[in-house]
């Protein structure tokens, strides 16, 4: 007897290629086929007019609403006011100051976020300490030959970014202290931290902003007065530090017990143990959590419209009530949605990527 290997049969024609893929993923079973057809039809049916309105019929160039004649979206509304939407009422000769601070921020964040970059310690020092000081002088001016720009002129998308970045950067140290307090063995320190954290986490940001704008001035002697932006910022920082504390606590809890015990065995003092052993490891674990809170805060910065600051939402809202441009609110909202979406989606992707990275890289957390 002789055995010969026969050539393999070709796969059945409807399991490979486009047809096979569709069969496996779209039409596997009668119920799925009906669902695919019905939902696919609805999606396309709804999508065509939207695309038609947004892209095909839209007007893109022009100076005033007279340019919008085709019946589609009027993006002229956005393009003529883009500067205002991005920079608020900041004097146009000084836009470079905002741009420069955001470019610096972008470089620093890229440095921190990209893996395998050298000197990350220096980068975090620059971001957390030097950058805020430089930006403060850059934005408010009044020194180094730069004209002062009052904060009531700040606005637009840059205000959202400023509020969110300051909220996070300033809340981080408070958050660390609160989280350490919550895990402390001193009963009074622990209960004070718990009360602080739970109170701020229990109330909506909007009541915090209300509180900051009406109650804060009452708390200080009459000769100290805050401007509206500073009040909002104090409210945001107080609120955010409670959330930050919970993120930090999560990071601290993820550090294996052995690290604490080893530090104790070496005779390190509490602060040495924290600063040299625990926090550097914990901070790495916390980055996804910090990014997630940043996303939440970034979306929430649009609430400042309620206490009368002109962020992107407020400025677009005001512009769409301008008699010259009435009726184009939808275009404005889509523009805001796109701006926020790009930032938030990008960051959430980054944090998911990081979570996966941390999960595999630090598998052995015993």
């Amino acid at each position, binding site marked *: 007897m002789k055995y010969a290997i026969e050539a393999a049969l070709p796969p059945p024609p409807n399991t490979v290629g486009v047809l096979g893929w569709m069969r496996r993923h779209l039409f596997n079973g009668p119920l799925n086929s009906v669902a695919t057809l019905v939902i696919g039809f609805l999606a396309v049916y709804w999508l065509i007019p939207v695309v038609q309105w947004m892209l095909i019929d839209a007007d893109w160039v022009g100076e005033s609403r007279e340019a919008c004649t085709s019946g589609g979206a009027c993006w002229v509304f956005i393009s003529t006011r883009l500067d205002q939407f991005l920079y608020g009422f900041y004097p146009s000769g000084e836009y470079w100051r905002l741009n420069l601070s955001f470019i610096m921020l972008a470089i620093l964040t890229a440095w921190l976020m990209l893996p395998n970059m050298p000197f990350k310690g220096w980068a975090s020092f620059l971001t957390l300490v030097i950058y805020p000081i430089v930006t403060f002088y850059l934005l408010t001016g009044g020194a180094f030959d730069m004209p002062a720009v009052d904060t009531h002129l700040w606005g637009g998308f840059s205000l959202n970014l400023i509020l969110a970045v300051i909220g996070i950067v300033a809340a981080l140290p408070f958050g660390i*202290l609160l989280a350490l307090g919550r895990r402390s063995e001193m009963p009074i320190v622990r209960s004070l931290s718990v009360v602080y954290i739970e109170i701020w986490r229990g109330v909506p940001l909007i*009541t915090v902003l209300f509180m900051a704008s009406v*109650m804060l001035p009452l708390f200080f002697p009459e000769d100290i007065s805050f401007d509206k932006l500073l009040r909002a910022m104090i409210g945001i920082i107080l609120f955010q530090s409670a959330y930050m504390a919970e993120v930090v606590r999560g990071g601290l809890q993820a550090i294996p017990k052995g690290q604490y015990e080893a530090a104790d065995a070496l005779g390190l003092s509490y602060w040495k143990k924290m600063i040299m052993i625990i926090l550097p490891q914990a901070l790495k674990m916390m980055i996804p959590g910090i990014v997630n809170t940043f996303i939440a805060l970034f979306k929430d910065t649009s609430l400042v419209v309620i206490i009368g600051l002109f962020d992107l939402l407020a400025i677009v809202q005001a512009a769409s009530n301008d008699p010259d441009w009435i009726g184009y609110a939808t275009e404005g909202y889509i523009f805001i949605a796109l701006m926020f979406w790009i930032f938030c989606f990008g960051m959430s992707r980054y944090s998911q990527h990081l979570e996966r990275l941390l999960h595999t890289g630090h598998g052995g957390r015993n």
Partner: protein
Amino acid sequence: MSEDTPKADKPGSSRAPSSETRFWNDPAKRALIFQALLIGIIGFFLFSIVSNTLNNLETRGITTGFGFLTDEAGFSIPLSLIDYTAADSYGRTFIVGLLNTILVSVLGIIAATLLGFVMGVARLSDNWMIAKLSTIYIEIFRNIPLLLQMFFWYFAVLRSLPSPRQSIEFLGSFLNVRGLSVPRPVAEEGLGMVFWAFVVAIVLSLILVRWAHRRQDATGQIFPSGWASTGLILGLPLLTFVIMGAPLSLDAPQLRGFNFTGGMTLMPELVALWLALTIYTSTFIAETVRGGILAVPKGQLEAASALGLPKTRTLRLIVIPQAMRVIIPPLTSQYLNLTKNSSLATAIGYPDLVSVFAGTTLNQTGQAIEVISMTMAVYLTLSLLTSLFMNWYNKRMALVER
């Protein structure tokens, strides 16, 4: 903070002070001193805040205290679940606002849960298109600020609806710029019986389920108690409803002049708020649900199919109970978030607690401290109740490990 806290983070690692330790090196004494200092600092801080506030209030001529709650409010509220007129007190505006907050939160929680579960399961569907569409839905609406979504629904969609005369009509309801007018169910003689039939049906099905469990334990035979009790709970009230001669009529909205009379009108602010809260929260619930289902280990499914359980029973007995254990804690915190987010109502003029009480009442009375504290206390109570529930639930659901 101090140079050093007393002990390490873990109990059992504390170093007992030897007899010749100086008192500033003794962790216990040091902790005492540090905490006393902290209390002193915070006490001083609070004291200066209180005295500053009292000073400031005095110079502005505002009297403190909750006496204002009994004063006449003098403004009307467009939506109220209890009787309210402008002649009622400020205290009553607090209740009205609170009830409106609860109304929109409950509506939002119900709708967001349904939509969220559908979307979460759809994202795991083996139908590629359904999974992708649900992913797109989740990723779009999760990453756009809630306030913007609210503005969109309110200003761009609902405000540009036609006037009442050109209403969009569907299923006996009318949608126009003044809101959504739907037929109002009117109870007639005998509806109480239907309600009692419903209660009886629930009790009966509970007994049925217990009996089925006992029978299954004894004989191994399975009784379809799920179907039977669904039939009972739906069928018995329906039967009573028919026997009593359909004791329910609908008061349909009618166009009179420029507006609708009769029926029930949902104000556009409520609709916009409801839509925005539902859509925004449903994306987070969908992610929670997806995570919960994925958290059920694959071995559980394999074990179920090795036992020969059919697909539906695997789902009902193996997947859902284990997934729910993971889903419920984050789900409750999403409910809490929705309730807190409903305070954005003030931006579009829905009369919720923040808008009515921390808005109008605050502006009229100037009692900033009292009003803001009462408002915050409401949300704080809600969140404490939620975390109490979660602790209770986690304790009940914790895996009993041996």
